[in-house]
């Protein structure tokens, strides 16, 4: 009986020949990522060592990554003090995969990890962030955990008592129509599965559409797998994965291609043909409340956000800049753009995208998570509506429970910026 890709990864990480869905295993962790919530991880980590007579020591500092992204630059003395404590811990424990608040190597954790070459196919990656699922785009088993669980990983180097998840095989075929892409695909899938349809399971992506998709797009579909409840999303490693690791992440050593067996056993099979897919919108207040754009066209929008770990990459900014070049953001709306990393910001500058966006009237902010979860910049007023390329639209998500958030692709966001209402980019927008 064959194994799914996650079963294979967990077999390797536990030193076994075979593991099967439902078993309890304790995989060695290859990469353990935290952001500002490392402040809580540190607190819990020190608790573990209390009254043991042992000096607290991270099991392997080279496998720990800490990236400041949620509140950068600090919005309050409290955050700044937490960040200061984390810096001291990082220095004391010689954690080198640390990305401080910087314009060159700083950015959002789910972009920094891939672009820095920290994630490899076959890795077990844990992160104190639910969107850690993103890293399945590189063929890793990557999942979100809480801060106390991370403290346990820092102490032991393993994830304790992990139940091997069953896997849903999603086969995607067809060529995307113009102005339709990975974001529309994953919103459509979440609508099909519902917010809990993949709970405790992995979504393994296959098919010609995925094979021809860039790593940037794969990061989108794995990032939002968690919005269907999935433990992880994963794309088996292929030539594109290796190309990304070599050309964009500077990886020089051997890349091991961990793939599912042809006779792997799946919990469920789904097929999606994207050739007729329309732009998809997740309507308030759940991510699975997904509609085709025609159901909400014309809805006035007060604020448009392009960015986040979901859609703040160079191809996203290129799409937005292409649509907005020489045009203007409508006077009745405002537009915020958050590139996913300092590197992407630089590339967007060099390629003129930042100028296109700024001259159109958008504010191009520093990389960070702030507005997506309502913690820093871009607050909404009572009764206001946001249209955003981020990943969640829960009540209060963007900081105000008396506001509404619609989720969409960068193409829809940019086309809507020109009109100030939700607008189908296929009608009149130019690439």
């Amino acid at each position, binding site marked *: 009986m064959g194994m799914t890709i996650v079963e294979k990864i967990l077999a390797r990480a536990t030193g076994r020949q075979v593991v099967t869905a439902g078993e*309890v295993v304790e995989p060695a962790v290859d990469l353990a990522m935290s952001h*500002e*919530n490392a*402040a*809580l991880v540190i*607190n*819990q980590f020190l*608790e*573990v*060592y*209390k009254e*043991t007579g*042992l000096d607290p020591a991270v099991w392997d500092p080279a496998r720990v990554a800490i990236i400041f992204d*949620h*509140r950068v630059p600090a919005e*309050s003395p*409290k*955050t700044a003090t*937490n960040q200061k404590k984390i810096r001291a811990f990082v220095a004391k424990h010689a954690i080198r995969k640390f990305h401080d608040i910087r314009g060159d190597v700083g950015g959002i954790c789910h972009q920094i990890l891939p672009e820095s070459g920290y994630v490899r196919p076959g890795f077990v990656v844990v992160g*104190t*962030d*639910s969107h*850690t699922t993103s890293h399945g785009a590189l063929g890793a088993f990557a999942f*979100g*955990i*809480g*801060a*106390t*669980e991370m*403290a*346990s990983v820092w*102490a*032991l180097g393993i994830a*304790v*008592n*992990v*139940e091997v998840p069953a896997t849903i095989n999603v086969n995607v075929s067809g060529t995307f129509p113009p102005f339709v892409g990975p974001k529309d695909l994953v919103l459509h899938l979440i609508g099909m599965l519902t*917010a*809990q349809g993949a*709970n*405790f399971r992995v979504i393994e992506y296959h098919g010609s559409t995925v094979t021809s998709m860039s790593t940037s797009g794969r990061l989108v579909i794995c990032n939002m797998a968690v919005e269907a*409840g999935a*433990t992880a999303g994963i794309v088996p490693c292929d030539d594109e994965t290796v190309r990304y690791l070599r050309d964009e992440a500077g990886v020089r050593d051997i890349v091991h291609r961990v793939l599912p067996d042809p006779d792997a056993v799946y919990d469920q099979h789904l097929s999606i043909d994207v050739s007729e897919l329309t732009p998809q919108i997740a309507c308030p207040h*759940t991510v*699975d409340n997904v509609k085709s754009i025609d159901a909400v066209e014309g809805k006035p929008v007060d604020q448009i956000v392009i960015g986040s770990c979901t859609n703040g990459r160079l191809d996203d900014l290129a799409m937005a800049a292409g649509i907005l070049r020489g045009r203007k953001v409508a006077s009745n709306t405002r537009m915020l753009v958050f590139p996913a990393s300092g590197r992407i910001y630089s590339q967007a500058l060099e390629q003129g995208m930042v100028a296109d966006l700024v001259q159109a009237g958008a504010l191009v902010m520093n990389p960070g998570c702030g507005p997506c*979860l*309502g*913690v820093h910049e871009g607050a909404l007023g009572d009764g206001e509506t946001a249209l955003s390329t981020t990943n*969640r639209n*829960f*009540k*209060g*998500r963007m*900081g105000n*429970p008396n506001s509404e958030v619609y989720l969409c692709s960068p193409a829809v966001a940019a086309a809507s910026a020109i009109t100030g209402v939700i607008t189908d980019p296929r009608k009149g927008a130019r690439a």
Partner: protein
Amino acid sequence: MPAVVLTLGDDISTDVIYPGRYMATVLPSETPQFAFADLAGFNTRLKSGEIPPGSVIAAGKNFGCGSSREQAVSTLKGYELTVVAGSFARIFMQNAINLGLNLITAPGFEAAEGDTVEIVGEVIRNRTSGGRFAVLPLPKARQAILDAGGLISYTRQRLLKTLRTTDA
């Protein structure tokens, strides 16, 4: 006999349980003040101390979906609340086990605010309505952590055991 103090629907996210704007507050001793901060009435009742430990939040499916923020658990643990839901999101459930927040999975559980409930064996009974609902056991992987009194003490035990093995 514990009473139901709040009823909620499906897909209650951690943004509702503990809004993101309070995430700079991390310590379990400080997070309870922001529990359900956007449900101002309930938050006020919690902070007033009128809700006794063991009181029940009744919810539908997929309680705790969304962000991995552990504050969403520590904020409820601070009041020793019990959450009875049709199902729980994975990370929230694991965080709850790690910190010792009492979760009960009871598909189809129905209750109104003020109802009293009791758990007998593998059944939760709504004493006010007379309804009885099966309680599903926790995933088997979780029991060892509960038995140890939470993940911190579990990890401490494992760490000491590993060192003893290494020394021997």
